[in-house]
């Protein structure tokens, strides 16, 4: 088993909560893990990415080589396109469709969505909307993790266990919200995949 994921978004959107849950699940499954994050200046509203690598064999590089990522998991549509050179030939792009506009030259949103729809394997999901239906817009990152989960060789159970471990100290209510968000995202992606 080997799974390389590029997580992308904008500083402040909290992509690291997704990485933390995946990391927790990898640990309980006794997998090797490397996860490189962006700290520092870019966290002030700049483009941020995290390279997450899971494997049952020793992993060398903290960075993912070009063309080897099975997934680009982006919490922002424009950012999903920034890391395309990392995507493998069979790779999926899983992206949120809600734009985060904090730059004056943000391209036309329709143009961005067109480029995303033109990708061969893509799941585009309005994570905010799905999270709101699940109970709170704040859980949108777990919607994204759910939408990516059918493409990651980790059981839904172990990912849910990861969510419990990470959000546990915030109380049962927060855990349940994030579990609902995760399941809604997962159901959405499974449906799209079978369409």
């Amino acid at each position: 088993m080997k799974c390389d994921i590029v997580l992308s978004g904008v500083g402040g959107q909290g992509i690291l909560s997704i990485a933390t849950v995946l990391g927790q699940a990898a640990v309980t499954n006794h997998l090797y893990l490397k996860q490189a994050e962006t700290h520092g200046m870019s966290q002030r509203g700049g483009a941020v990415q995290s390279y997450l690598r899971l494997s049952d064999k020793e992993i060398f590089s903290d960075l993912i080589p070009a063309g080897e990522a099975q997934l680009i998991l982006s919490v922002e549509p424009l950012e999903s396109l920034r890391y395309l050179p990392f995507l493998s030939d069979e790779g999926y792009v899983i992206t949120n469709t809600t734009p985060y506009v904090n730059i004056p030259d943000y391209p036309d949103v329709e143009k961005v969505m067109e480029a995303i729809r033109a990708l061969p394997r893509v799941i585009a999901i309005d994570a905010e909307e799905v999270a709101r239906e699940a109970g709170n817009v704040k859980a949108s990152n777990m919607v994204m993790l759910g939408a990516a989960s059918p493409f990651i060789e980790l059981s839904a159970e172990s990912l849910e266990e990861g969510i419990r471990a990470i959000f546990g100290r915030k109380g049962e209510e927060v855990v349940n919200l994030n579990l609902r968000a995760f399941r809604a995202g997962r159901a959405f992606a499974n449906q799209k995949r079978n369409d």
Partner: protein
Amino acid sequence: MTTKKLLLGVEAIGQGAIDGGISGVYAYPGTPSTEITEYIQENRTAIDRNIHRQWSANEKTAMEAALGMSYAGKRTLVCMKHVGLNVAADVFMNIAVTGINGGMVITVADDPSMHSSQNEQDTRYYGKFAMVPVFEPANQQEAYDMTQTGLELSEQWGIPVLLRITTRLAHSRSGVNLVPQPQPENGIRMPEDTMQFVLLPGNARKRYNHLLSSQTLFQKAADDSPYNRFEEGYDRSLGIVCCGIAYNYYRENFPARSPYPVVKIGQYPLPEKALIRLEAEVDEILVLEEGYPIVEEQLRGFYGRGRKILGRLDGTLPRAGELNPDLVAAALKLERSERAGIPSWLANRPPALCKGCGHHDTYKALNEVMEEHGRGKVFSDIGCYTLGALPPYNSIYSCVDMGASVTMAKGAADAGLFPSIAVIGDSTFTHSGITGLLDCVNEKSNVVLIIVDNESISMTGGQDSSAFGRLESICLGVGVDPAHLHVLEALPKNHEQMVQLLRQEIAWNGVSVIIPRRECIQKMARRKRG
């Protein structure tokens, strides 16, 4: 039974220092080194043992305090980013000569590609400059292990050691096996030689000779180090020298086994025996190192008459920037299929001031006033407020080193530039701006100093500012005229007042200090979340 913990490279160093028996960590925040100290600050064992873990005013005061703790016989960790070592260079160069008592590891985090820095200087040069051993981990486990080895060996040798990491290892997470039994702290133990720390010339020469004669010891340690090793290969057309995490980028291209003989380096001075063997066995040598081509230069020599050395100097690899598996693949001439590109119209997303940050209010007022005086007359410094150099504000025209805004404004005023204005953060000011202000006061320089006070070291994550609640008294103590020291809240409703104050103080010939103050919006949000 060993415990395995998921740790960032920086956290692994913090954990290694705790398990290696430190009694104190001394540091000033700076990306990518900040989280070493933060990890120790939040660690249960560190809290229970009451390990010293408060931030210092700057890297120099940090290293000096650590030296005092080492003098008393206890182990210490000092942490900083690469440019921080420039600030601490005075004490650093001299403690190589005095030596130390309790073990001391100086961790310096380099930032090749300048993700969050002003330059990409390579700390290994400082190691060579001071003639102290340098450790360079390839992964999180080595970062943890080397911190403990470094504390042990530095104490045994009576010499501080450098632990050099780079951004990628600092901020990448992986599983780390922890030692079952952490090392207990040392008790107070005075230096045996009462003259050891007295660098009067006669004694300094003696100590320097001691440092020189210790070099053979460091060389032997590097030759025997478990962090330096020779790996066999069947294809001897090429030999590879890998330093630190460059080893990972190399092996990523040959995960099963390397076809070429490899010398993996994690401890300096360079392991002579392994390198001489490599030189004898292969036709050409490719040097893979993160940062400057320091090893490549040494292997190549001045005349370059030995084996052909490939690396950053001959263009096999880019001269600047961090390495990655793809650059290494290209250097090895490995075939890679064409990848999809990034759409050409994709906008960049640079960092920006947070919505609601008080710096917006300062720059809006400053821009309005400076319209009357033309561009280029505002010097600035290092912090979140440096983002004022970018659109939409384009307010400031310098960012060089900590505190330089104050003294550059002074020098420009000396040259006759009017007005001459400095914008500096509260923590940058206490780090290295106070002495510059003293120069201004002594000469009654015609400058306006704007200390943008967000009561926090914000760019690195909201650490406590050492000037908190004391900025005015510091300025007055340095000798600023109370009539020309003004504090106001950085809020849109105070725009007119700020404009007015700026005009008034620009018009006055002398040193003025204006402090627009409002708590960092990120810190406030964190405080409210609890």
